[in-house]
């Protein structure tokens, strides 16, 4: 019976492939490093193609944007004037605070934190869909980028480098399910952890004083536990409700074209064990993980 034999073979083939796919998932869980290395090898091969492809798209998007700006040039001008006046007032305030800060630091013999070095990179892949929140940039280990470096734009924090190959690096966005950023909220500097959930607005968890947070409060990284430097602007509290406190990130992911990759000299903390393995089991925030590791030492 060749027909039944053929369909039996077909079923066997399908079952085999599905089992193989399941095996790949298990392997990703069991040996995250191996799978990450495979991923990076493939990314390395595809990044040149994506680099070429994304250029005309970026140019097109830029063209559309400048056309839109031309249409609203008067309106935009008025807005900018207003903003400039406001910023000038801030500049005066900032200069005064800067002077005061310097004087106080001198008074206290304050030891400043390490200076960051920056490298620019272009975003070449921004996968659509709600399953994953990561980016690929077209700079890798040969450009001096390493795991644990912080990715920022002029708006604020974008995420963190979780994997590097020769010419590409993967950025885990702060909205990803696996992202945890220790933060301060508002003027009261309430300690919390910003946890992504693959939605547009990450949530605040482990909030120390819940009642002190209100809508519109600014969220900045706290630098607690050393995964991120302190003082990077992250977002604004968007909603305080029964469903938790959500934060609107300052960086609009869909408009990202160039990012800056900052080395704050905190990679060594992250590099020993595979801390940020994709889908790593530990639901502990980064801060907790680092604390646990510090305790272990």
């Amino acid at each position, binding site marked *: 019976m060749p027909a039944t034999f053929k369909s039996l073979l077909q079923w066997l083939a399908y079952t085999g492939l*599905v089992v*193989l796919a399941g095996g790949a998932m298990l392997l990703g869980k069991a040996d995250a490093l191996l799978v990450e290395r495979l991923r990076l090898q493939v990314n390395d091969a595809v990044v040149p193609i994506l680099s070429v492809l994304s250029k005309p798209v970026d140019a097109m998007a830029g063209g559309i944007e400048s056309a839109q700006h031309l249409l609203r040039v008067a309106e935009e001008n008025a807005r900018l004037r207003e903003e400039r006046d406001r910023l000038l007032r801030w500049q005066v305030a900032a200069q005064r605070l800067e002077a005061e800060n310097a004087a106080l630091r001198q008074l206290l013999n304050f030891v400043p934190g390490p200076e960051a070095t920056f490298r620019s990179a272009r975003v070449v892949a921004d996968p659509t869909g709600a399953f994953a929140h990561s980016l690929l940039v077209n700079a890798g280990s040969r450009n001096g980028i390493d795991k644990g470096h912080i990715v920022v734009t002029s708006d604020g924090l974008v995420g963190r480098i979780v994997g590097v190959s020769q010419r590409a690096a993967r950025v885990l966005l702060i909205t990803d399910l696996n992202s945890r950023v220790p933060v301060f909220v508002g003027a009261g500097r309430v300690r919390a952890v910003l946890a992504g959930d693959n939605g547009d607005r990450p949530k605040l968890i482990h909030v120390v004083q819940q009642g002190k947070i209100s809508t519109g409060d600014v969220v900045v990284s706290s630098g607690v536990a050393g995964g991120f430097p302190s003082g990077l602007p992250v977002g604004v509290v968007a909603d305080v409700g029964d469903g938790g406190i959500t934060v609107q990130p300052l960086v609009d992911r869909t408009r990202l074209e160039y990012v800056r990759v900052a080395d704050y000299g905190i990679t060594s903390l992250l590099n020993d064990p595979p801390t940020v393995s994709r889908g790593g089991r530990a639901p502990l925030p980064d801060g907790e993980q680092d604390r646990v590791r510090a305790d272990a030492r």
Partner: protein
Amino acid sequence: MKPTLWRRLDTLARQLVPSVSIFLLMLIGVVPLHIPALHAVAPALPLIAVFYWTLYRPDLLPAVAVFAAGLLQDILFGLPLGVSACMLVLVHAAVTTQHRFFLGKSFGIIWLGFSLVAAGALTLAWLATSAYNATLIPADAIAFQALTTIGFYPILCWLLLRCQATLLRQV
């Protein structure tokens, strides 16, 4: 008469059209398009292409090729390795087993069939990714993605049909 080398190369290139089209659609899903409204709910274009080619040219798209495409998608999109591979292979299996049902049916019926397959596939991917991360991923964006994928089917179907009619007429 034995076909010349060029002739054979040409045929081979044409036979690769389904696989290449899936790869290109995958790249479209990854290149930053700067369209904020579409981002989280962008249609799963490779899913549509796998459905289309399995239905109309199953001889040119073996299950192994679909599996490989799925693995590549997992790597490019940063998904857990194996999720898309499993999803696309099951789509291939669903279409192959129901091939006789789809044969000669009107476009509306096939579209309905695609809707069921796509909804099932994305639900499965959602479950698998949630299980992998041991937390529930918000389902609303994925439900919207299923809707945009179903809505995009006729457009992409037309494009692939043009592609099939011009490139694969004699293959």
